[in-house]
């Protein structure tokens, strides 16, 4: 087994531990933020496991799990947990409803895409993140070494594209940026904002550090995903493991009880309570 096959398994174990920890906290405190975080972490863990599996063998339902939970939804659910910690307003219920409906719709679109998967293109020699999408080549652009290309009419013109598992123009792919932008703003933005508030008030140093770690962890996966899209997929698994470890440490540091916390807790929001 190569290091790129081992890393997703380690990420899965860390995320499983993290998920259990957060959901246990939800059962004790009944704060919906922990439930959303727990669901997001479970999705992250499922995505990591699917990635690990797909580095060894093909299964189209494992691919379903990888794309829907690992690539599309998990950041949004994690970020929604942070939003619930920061904001206690009625409009958050509306956002929750939109997230649930949007996630179900993405699941429906993914189910629609399943019979159209180009399974013949799958190989265990490349990370799944480098082979899931069919990519149109720009004029003069050369395809990556070993890539299979084809010519097809697309949006009124004849284009050359690199074959991928999901066919060209699959609607589910259009939903992913919405979820990821929302997740990035709420998860990273929320953690940075919380860290800033604590830092400005000069209180709870543990939560300042915790939120910096959570933001850094979330950014490391965002950064690794962007690098993957730019053709540097070898950093994705390392980015995921780093994200899992940093966020877990951040969560544990934030949860560590400190004196005076009870008094300040109601006045200063935190992204990991």
């Amino acid at each position, binding site marked *: 087994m190569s290091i790129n096959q081992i890393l997703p398994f380690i990420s899965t174990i860390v995320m499983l531990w993290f998920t259990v920890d957060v959901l246990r906290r939800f059962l004790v405190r009944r704060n919906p933020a922990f439930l959303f975080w727990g669901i997001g972490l479970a999705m992250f863990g499922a995505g990591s496991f699917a990635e690990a599996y797909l580095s060894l063998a093909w299964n189209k339902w494992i691919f379903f799990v990888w794309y829907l939970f690992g690539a599309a939804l998990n950041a949004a659910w994690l970020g929604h947990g942070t939003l619930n910690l920061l904001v206690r307003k009625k409009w958050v219920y509306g956002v929750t409803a939109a997230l649930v409906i949007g996630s179900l719709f993405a699941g429906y679109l993914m189910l629609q895409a399943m019979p159209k998967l180009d399974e013949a293109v799958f190989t265990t020699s490349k990370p799944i993140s480098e082979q899931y999408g069919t990519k149109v080549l720009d004029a003069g652009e050369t395809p990556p070494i070993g890539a299979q290309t084809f010519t097809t009419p697309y949006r009124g013109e004849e284009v050359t594209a690199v074959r991928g598992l999901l066919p060209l123009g699959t609607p589910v792919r259009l939903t992913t940026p919405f979820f*990821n932008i929302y997740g990035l703003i709420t998860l*990273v933005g929320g953690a940075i904002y919380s860290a800033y508030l604590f830092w400005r008030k000069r209180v*709870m140093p543990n939560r300042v550090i915790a939120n910096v770690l959570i933001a850094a962890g979330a950014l490391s996966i965002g*950064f690794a995903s962007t690098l993957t899209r730019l053709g540097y997929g070898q950093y994705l698994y390392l980015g995921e493991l780093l994200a899992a470890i940093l966020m877990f440490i951040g969560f544990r540091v934030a949860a560590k009880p400190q004196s005076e916390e009870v008094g300040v807790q109601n006045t200063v929001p935190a992204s990991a309570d």
Partner: protein
Amino acid sequence: MSNHIRANNKSHIPSGSFLFEKFVPAALIVMGVITVGLILFAAGVLLGIIHF
């Protein structure tokens, strides 16, 4: 130092600390900039300005 004073110090950011005076603000600014960059990148993909 009594336990009470020690507890109070623990829940406040120590003054003159390099970690909190320099590193944390710098890290927050850098991460904020990276976040904005990633959001613009994702928006570019969504709007079809950046092709994949």
